[in-house]
């Protein structure tokens, strides 16, 4: 087969076409700029495609639910949500954030789910000073060294959910623990959080097993755990990985070793895990079965509106919307009064479906962490493992 040289010559007509295409390409992104309208513009950067789409949708749903409950108004102004798919792709997230801030001229920014995207988003939000609320991503840094007056979070730090589990295990005499987690930011930080609450009180981490993220081949880790025979294994897995890990764990027998973890292990996935999830204990800042009026009302309304059970991600979105509400109510919807909004949001205290909600000086929730057990596919509450847990927020200058 002869491969010909590419021969390219260009006619004048084609020259013009080429030039036109270039010119078009260069002006495409420019659009008619909107002026400040009467509506409060809320930019939402969440994953609507890919592995994390479920979380993005839950957060968005709950926000819409909250806004509907508020009569569709914030501080007397109508609300407009501008949603952008973050695809959980950090390298592009800076640009998408810029789009929401500079082109869509949003007043408030909400997002994202993924920690890497959160880092990207926080970078731009810090530069532009736009009020930003993180409704999921738990990267400790966001409300640690990177904390800023305009950055808020209504979810958790990765450090938080697992921290109280150490004491729970020690109280039962379980002193030798293996940690097993997806080896990426969230997994590493969650394991650190557990360690902080476990080792200083006399616990021993026998081994730290990091499984390459997002691999779901866990047999090597399970075999090693079986050989180490610890009293318990602390884990961080979420979503599809959590389903697979719990099922594999169940099939592997591992008698005498308890599986515990950050609550994501059994959050929104118990149906897929089925019987394998029964009896698992985890710690998290929320549980479906929390028996407080706010939660009962929220879950009922969510189910009625979307035909789905709410989960922790929905709660975080719901509270993000409430936090915006508190902020804008204080200034009667005047989004230019940023300092006052921040002040109001910092002082916000309300009854969230997760229990009492308030923020630390680093703008991360100070919240109860519950010890939960899966019973018939539902995360029931056994006890409050830690009342009002606040992240240490190492390196935050707002403290």
């Amino acid at each position, binding site marked *: 087969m002869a491969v010909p040289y590419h021969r390219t010559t260009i006619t004048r007509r084609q020259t013009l076409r080429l030039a036109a*295409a270039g010119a078009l390409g260069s*002006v495409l992104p420019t659009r008619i700029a909107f002026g400040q309208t009467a509506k409060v513009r809320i930019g939402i950067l969440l994953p609507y495609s890919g592995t994390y789409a479920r979380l993005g949708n839950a957060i968005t749903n709950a926000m819409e639910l909250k806004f509907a409950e508020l009569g569709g108004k914030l501080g007397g102004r109508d609300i407009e949500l501008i949603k952008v798919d973050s695809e959980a792709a950090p390298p592009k997230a*800076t640009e998408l954030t*810029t789009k929401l801030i500079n082109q869509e001229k949003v007043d408030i920014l909400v997002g994202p789910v993924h920690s890497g995207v959160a880092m990207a988003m926080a970078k731009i939000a810090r530069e532009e000073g736009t009020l930003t609320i993180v409704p999921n991503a738990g990267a400790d840094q966001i409300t640690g060294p990177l904390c800023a007056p305009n950055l808020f979070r209504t979810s958790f730090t990765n450090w938080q959910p697992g921290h109280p589990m150490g004491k729970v295990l020690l109280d039962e005499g379980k002193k030798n623990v293996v940690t097993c987690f997806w080896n*990426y*930011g969230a997994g590493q930080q969650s394991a650190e959080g557990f360690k902080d609450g476990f080792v200083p009180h006399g616990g021993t981490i026998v081994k730290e097993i990091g499984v*390459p993220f997002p691999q779901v081949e866990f047999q090597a880790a399970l075999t090693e755990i079986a050989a180490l025979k610890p009293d318990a294994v602390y884990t961080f897995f979420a979503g599809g990985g959590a389903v697979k890990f719990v099922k594999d764990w169940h099939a592997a027998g591992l008698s005498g070793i308890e599986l515990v973890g950050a609550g994501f292990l059994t959050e929104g996935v118990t149906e897929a895990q089925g019987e394998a999830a029964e009896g698992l204990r985890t710690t998290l800042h929320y549980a479906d079965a929390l028996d407080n009026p706010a939660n009962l009302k929220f879950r009922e309304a969510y189910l009625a509106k979307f035909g789905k059970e709410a989960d922790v991600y929905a709660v975080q979105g719901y509270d993000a919307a409430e936090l915006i509400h508190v902020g804008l109510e204080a200034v009667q919807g005047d989004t230019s009064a940023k300092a006052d909004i921040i002040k109001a949001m910092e002082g916000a205290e309300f009854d969230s479906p997760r229990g009492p909600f308030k923020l630390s000086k680093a703008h991360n929730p100070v919240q109860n962490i519950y010890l939960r057990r899966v019973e018939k596919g539902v995360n029931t509450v056994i006890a409050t493992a830690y009342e009002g847990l606040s992240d240490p927020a190492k390196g935050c200058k707002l403290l």
Partner: protein
Amino acid sequence: MVTIPNRRVAVALALVFAALAVVPLVGETYALKVATRMIVFAIFAMSLDLLLGYTGLVSFGHAAFFGLSAYSLQLVSPESEAANLITALPQCLGVTAAAAALIGMLVVRTAGIYFIMSTLALAQMFFFFFHDSPIAGGSDGAYIWYKPVLTIGATALLDLDGRETLYYFALACLVLCYGFLVVVLRSPFGEVIQGIRVNEHRMRALGYDTRRFKLVSFVLSALMAGLAGFLFACIDGFVAPQLLGWRESGIGLVMVILGGMGTLYGSIIGAFAFIGMEEIVRDRQFTGVMAEHWQILMGVFVIVVVLFLKNGLAGLFAEPPIRRPATKEEP
């Protein structure tokens, strides 16, 4: 014989660059950032075209060099002040070139699909290094707090923190890279690598050490990808391991093929078209409710180009083939 632009292409390109030069005058922040990104990826795609379209080497790991250079900038940038462009750029490119030389020496031993896969494998190793290890923030990525400034003596000449400065700097880099590649491809060296693409055996029979030529081409290409990565890191001052991932490499390939490989300017068209199209299909103004399923539209766009534009978008501008009396095909 060699696909070097004639006067007409040169005029067209000049017009395109002129159009690009006025973007900062009409565009706002976001448009400027998108345009900068387009330019950066045009450089990246063009660097890949040197391998794909001229040397006949298909690299599926080119993003490793893009990302490595971006990470190098993060690592050489001090936390509380800006790095000097004069030292930072050579440092980043030096790291990239060193890595490329090392990887290149290994991969030029293979050919065809094995070359594709070994570049992929080595690039994935770099990806996992930055993803799993605590260097530069691991999977969460890291910030470049201050973008590089070109300082000579005590005067700051060029601050890449300025969006327009960065844009023009990137544009200048694109023009320089294009010119550089044209010169390279016209040189005896360029003739040889294109000869290798067509028939490596013949070139070896002619006495050329083809591996060495392929290695030099590989390193040159990686250097240019590194320049693109450096510029990318300057746009927002954020690096994440995904920059080195196979998806980014794949997108580079897609841009080159989309634009039409082996033409250089095709890569520029490809990068602009890919990013521009993504902007369009994601925008509710243009695609309405389908914006929610923008990936389908993007997929359809890509497929349509493959099926109907045989030589990529650049094929649109190519002259229809001249009918010549049937002659025997060259062996």
